[in-house]
């Protein structure tokens, strides 16, 4: 047999192909992204550790003797709020809760979006048509108003119900994104190849197609986290946010709505606003670096 003797693999630099590894490797060359990741990591670390260390009573208990203390007074580094609680502690736990909510909503919407989007995009046809009409319809719903109605309706409103409510209006964008990505992946022959190899549909959808849009999913996830923290903030401003014993960046920034506090006690809301800014910027920078990483892999 005249076997072809070409055995040396072409020496294209071996790009690790799993979405995550690509990303890490690409990020290493992106100074902005490294800074962003470090910032996000620091914030996460501080808030998670802080969340464990800071006793719940410190966040709840009012001490009106100590209220509205300016930063530095009585050992409160960032001052105290109108209940006399330490802003720094409140901020740390608030950030943890906000991030928690942002992440949870992102997880839920992403999972929903992935399942629905992949199914619709993969099977196409009437299923896709129906799903897309539903998505369109949800897009038409005035989200903010619907959220407000639901917040009012649910009996025992807490962080979990907030997460579920925000999620129920946040999955459409992801679904659309995933669906269109899946549509374009479905055109690729590896899907046809898997079908002819006898692979069942669910395996193709989640085992073959999904890994190929993983960087997209990661990026969307990261950006969704940032976006959802913003939604929570807006709700708090309107008075439909979390109960006072569940601090969040939103409830803190909403202090800015109190006319007496916005200028006279800026330490009550400004640190939260700045933290939100830094957090959003970093998450976005990270998300964009992810997107760039994904793109650059596609180019090679």
């Amino acid at each position, binding site marked *: 047999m*005249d076997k*072809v*003797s*070409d055995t*040396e693999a*072409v*020496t*294209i630099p071996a790009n690790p192909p799993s979405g995550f590894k690509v990303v890490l490797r690409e990020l290493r060359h992106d100074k902005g992204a490294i800074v962003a990741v470090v910032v996000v990591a620091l914030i996460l670390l501080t808030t998670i550790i802080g969340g464990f260390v800071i006793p719940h009573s410190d966040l709840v208990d009012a001490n009106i003797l100590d209220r509205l203390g300016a930063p530095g007074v009585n050992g409160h580094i960032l001052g105290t709020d109108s209940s006399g609680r330490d802003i720094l502690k409140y901020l740390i736990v608030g950030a943890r809760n906000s991030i928690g909510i942002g992440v949870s909503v992102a997880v839920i919407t992403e999972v929903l979006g992935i399942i629905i989007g992949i199914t619709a995009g993969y099977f196409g046809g009437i299923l896709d048509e129906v799903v897309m009409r539903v998505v369109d319809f949800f897009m038409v719903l005035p989200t903010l108003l619907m959220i407000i109605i639901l917040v009012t309706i649910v009996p025992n409103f807490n962080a979990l119900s907030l997460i579920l409510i925000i999620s129920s209006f946040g999955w459409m964008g992801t679904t659309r994104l995933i669906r269109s990505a899946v549509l374009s992946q479905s055109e690729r022959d590896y899907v046809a190849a898997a079908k002819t190899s006898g692979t069942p549909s669910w395996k193709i959808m989640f085992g073959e197609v999904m890994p190929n849009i993983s960087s997209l999913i990661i990026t969307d996830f990261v950006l969704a986290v940032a976006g959802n923290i913003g939604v929570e903030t807006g709700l708090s401003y309107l008075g439909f946010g979390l109960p006072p014993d569940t601090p969040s960046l939103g409830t803190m920034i909403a202090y800015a709505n109190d006319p007496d506090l916005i200028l006279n006690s800026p330490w009550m809301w400004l640190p939260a606003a700045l933290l939100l800014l830094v957090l959003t910027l970093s998450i976005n920078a990270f998300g964009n670096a992810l997107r760039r990483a994904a793109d650059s892999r596609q180019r090679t």
Partner: protein
Amino acid sequence: MDKPENQLLDIQHLHTAFRVGDDFYDAVEDVNLTLNRDEILAIVGESGSGKSTLATSVIGLHNLQNTKITGDILYNDLNLVGLNETLYNRIRGNDIGMIFQDPLAALNPLMRIGEQIGETLLYHTKLNKEERDHRVLELLGQVGIPNPVRVFKQYPHELSGGMRQRVVIAIAIACKPPILIADEPTTALDVTIQAQILDLLENIQQETHSGIILITHDLGVVAETADRVAVMYAGQIVEQGTVQAIFEHPLHPYTRSLLRSMPQADNDSDDLYVIEGTVPDLKHMQTDDCRFAARIPWIPASAHEAHPTMHEVEPGHFVRCTCYKTFHFNDEAEA
């Protein structure tokens, strides 16, 4: 060498290097080439051999931040290498026309066909709008578009692949440039349309007496249309000569291997000839030795030149490296 008055382009020691990471690597190395009036010069070679890089260097479309070009590209005593943008813009479209491979991508999706062709005229002629439109209609007719008036107002997506390629050609020849560069103009097309387009190119050349650089990897296309052929391998020209010389007396092992691996070649064997190994990529093609040596390992190293140069074996027929002298196919040796 052709007579200088017939000569349109004289490329001397051209090196084009791309930045990969922090270093520059030659994708085109020490290419010497001339183009004359009234001729079609074909450049053939496998993917990655540097054909497009060479053509792009001539028309000056490389992004100079990532590309380093040295050597000379002489056009009418003007050296195009390092020419400033304003001057180059006067030459592009007017003196050098370019035809690209993918006719859909090459056309602006938002502009009407008439406008896209007219744009060339706008920057190189003093024609007014009416005259330009008139000329565009004329060009559309010239490239064999059945209903120029309608097509004039259409958008690229409304045309078939063959029509689009004709439009791209019309753009390239709008100012009757003496030099035309066609980079794989028919690769995306069906054979029947390919034949039409190639005929069209020939006709245009006969009318305008231009010189055409035709880039392709299809040997059949070369054999049917070219006057002279340059065979590229790994960034270098390995053989150059008239089309008869190349197809009837190919010398360089690479040229011979290529011809032999064509299915059409009526060889008795049921199997096609296969060249061992693969074309090296940019980073791995950088060597002073004969770059093809790795793919004909049965030829002893001594057969290759230390620093291969072009040898003129007969007037106008050049071959790189001396290995051609002792080259034989693997099976022939065994036979």
